[in-house]
């Protein structure tokens, strides 16, 4: 299995960008690149057969859907595709069926399923024409999207491959560079740190759970759940930054999968910001049609909100079940469904009780936002326990003791996140949770740009110093540092974090607004900026290669 920090990945991406640019994304060249990329994940030709069989079945289903354009046929084709997928993925529901008696690869198949179903449904509806075989293969196996999405829509992909590639501008390089640095920083540094904390916390959590030590179980469960959430986010969103960056350099615009989920106003809002292309897919092909069918039968104004609750519950139940093949994912789906249903019911209830304008005004209040965000993130971090817990421990959690711990942890975590969020926002100004990326970073409506710049820079400096302080805490006592040495490393880490902020482009927009550099000297500015960034990157790499890694390594 290749990793995106392996030399193969770097060489492959550089070659792919170069070849796609040279040949204006020729379909055969793209096909060959996809083949090399996908093959690198699969140990033997035989192991690829089930995946290829699934894709071939999918293509036949698409053509059949277009040919018949009847609902009965469509239902049969969708059911057949989902059945084949569930069988190959060894879903617990189908465990009574015999499996192929050899080891085979299913990498990427969960996302291929969505691409195929989207084409089957849209071709049956007559909204899309079935793509030619090579275009189809390039779409389902497109290398940046292959491993874990984003789930791009075919018409979007098709429009990009059939039009001339956009030229490489300094702005493209500038943005892609920021994405790559941010992505690698997320994956290599942030997610490793979170996963280190998680590894330690969750084994202690299991121990506390089995000896039924209430307070310790709750505390360790909270740490495990939040560190896993941070790990999942930094790992997934980091990888998305990398593939979107590579895509940009090659001339393709891939859809965004994350939009600052930790700034969510509520659980409903969270799903518009977290794994966006998956949520959108379910909205298109499950939530909307289901709600539409229910609403056309029983949809009076009074009943509609409750139909919405049912629609959301079913959608999240299915979405949860897709995440894995064992029974615990059904529980995960139910838990997500209950969360979203409560959120929708709460909105209906509050609107009826307070009237829409007053409720709207309440939602705009900062304290309401903080509490609501706290509950949302607290609930979600506990929900994703299903993604990491061992089956045996899950059984322990389904006991009266376990469920009490579970419920208490949600309450405590929600409160802690609300307090933490309030403190962060109070320290850096409320605009900070709207910032920190190269996109969607708008300056505050009031207040000076310099203050805004200072707030963002402050965020980076404090996080750098904070992480280092944490590293000191974890550094084994047999390797003590003198106070002067510690202070030096703390300042160094704070400065490095500031430089990383500059590298990922966190200060671009405030500088842009303060100096209007996007005026007529934009090219010169971007070129200078790029040169400076490469200089910073080289500097950081040198520092990391000498002083920092040994120190961080020892701590984590």
């Amino acid at each position, binding site marked *: 299995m290749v990793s995106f920090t392996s030399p193969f990945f770097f060489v492959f991406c550089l070659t792919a960008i170069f070849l796609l640019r040279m040949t204006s994304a020729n379909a055969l060249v793209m096909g060959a690149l996809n083949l090399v990329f996908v093959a690198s994940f699969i140990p033997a030709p035989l192991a690829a057969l089930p995946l290829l069989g699934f894709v071939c079945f999918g293509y036949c289903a698409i053509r059949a859907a277009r040919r018949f354009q009847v609902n009965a046929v469509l239902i049969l084709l969708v059911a057949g595709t989902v059945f084949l997928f569930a069988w190959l993925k060894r879903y617990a529901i189908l465990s009574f069926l015999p499996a192929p008696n050899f080891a085979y690869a299913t990498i990427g198949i969960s996302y291929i399923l969505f691409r195929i179903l989207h084409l089957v449904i849209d071709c049956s*509806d007559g*909204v899309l024409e079935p793509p030619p075989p090579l275009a189809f293969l390039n779409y389902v196996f497109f290398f940046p999207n292959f491993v874990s999405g984003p789930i791009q829509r075919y018409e979007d992909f098709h429009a990009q491959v059939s039009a001339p590639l956009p030229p490489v501008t300094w702005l493209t390089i500038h943005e892609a560079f920021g994405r790559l640095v941010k992505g690698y920083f997320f994956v290599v540094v942030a997610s490793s740190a979170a996963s280190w904390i998680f590894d330690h916390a969750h084994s202690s959590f299991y121990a506390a759970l089995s000896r039924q030590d209430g307070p310790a179980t709750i505390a360790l469960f909270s740490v495990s759940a939040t560190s896993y959430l941070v790990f999942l986010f930094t790992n997934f969103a980091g990888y998305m930054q990398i593939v979107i960056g590579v895509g940009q350099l090659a001339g393709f615009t891939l859809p965004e999968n994350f939009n600052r989920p930790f700034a969510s106003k509520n659980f409903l809002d969270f799903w518009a910001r977290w794994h966006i292309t998956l949520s959108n897919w379910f909205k298109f*092909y499950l*939530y909307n049609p289901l*709600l*539409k069918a229910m*609403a056309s039968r029983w*949809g009076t104004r009074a009943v509609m909100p409750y139909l919405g609750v049912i629609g959301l519950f079913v959608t999240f139940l299915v979405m949860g079940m897709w995440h894995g093949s064992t029974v615990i994912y059904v529980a995960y789906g139910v838990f997500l469904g209950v969360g979203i249903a409560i959120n929708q019911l709460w909105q209906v209830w509050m609107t009826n009780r307070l009237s*829409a304008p007053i409720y709207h005004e309440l939602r705009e209040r900062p304290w309401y936002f903080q509490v609501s965000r706290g509950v949302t993130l607290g609930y979600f971090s506990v929900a994703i326990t299903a993604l990491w817990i061992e089956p045996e421990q899950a059984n322990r959690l389904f006991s009266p003791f376990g469920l009490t711990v579970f419920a208490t942890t949600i309450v405590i975590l929600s409160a802690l996140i609300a307090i933490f969020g309030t403190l962060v926002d109070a320290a850096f100004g409320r605009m900070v949770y709207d910032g920190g990326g190269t996109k969607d970073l708008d300056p505050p409506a009031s207040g000076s740009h310099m203050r805004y710049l200072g707030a963002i820079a402050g965020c980076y400096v404090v996080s750098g110093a904070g992480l280092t302080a944490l590293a000191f805490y974890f550094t084994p006592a047999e390797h003590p540092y003198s106070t002067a040495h510690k202070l030096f490393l703390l300042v160094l880490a704070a400065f490095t974090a500031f430089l990383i902020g500059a590298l990922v482009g966190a200060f671009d927009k405030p500088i842009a607004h303060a100096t209007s550099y996007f005026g007529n000297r934009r090219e010169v500015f971007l070129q200078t900026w790029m040169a400076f960034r490469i200089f910073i990157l080289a500097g950081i790499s040198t520092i990391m290669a000498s002083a920092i890694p040994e120190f961080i390594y020892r701590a984590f």
Partner: protein
Amino acid sequence: MLSHDVVWDRLTNVFRQVFDNDNIEITDTMTAADLPEWDSLSHITLVLAVEREFHVKLKAAEVGGLVNVGSFIKLLMARAA
């Protein structure tokens, strides 16, 4: 094919009825973000009302792809009777 203005006119009425607000003025660039009541739930109410008004049946990809008023108008100009 219906003209832009005819669709716009009839669509304005649909919006006003669905959102129960006679002051709504729709524009091509208007999205759900501009109208607080326009959420994923009322989107379906809106789609059903549009289907009745224009005698069309919208497909899954069309329902999901209607992100602004302009895309409604464009689709209805091509499809509506």
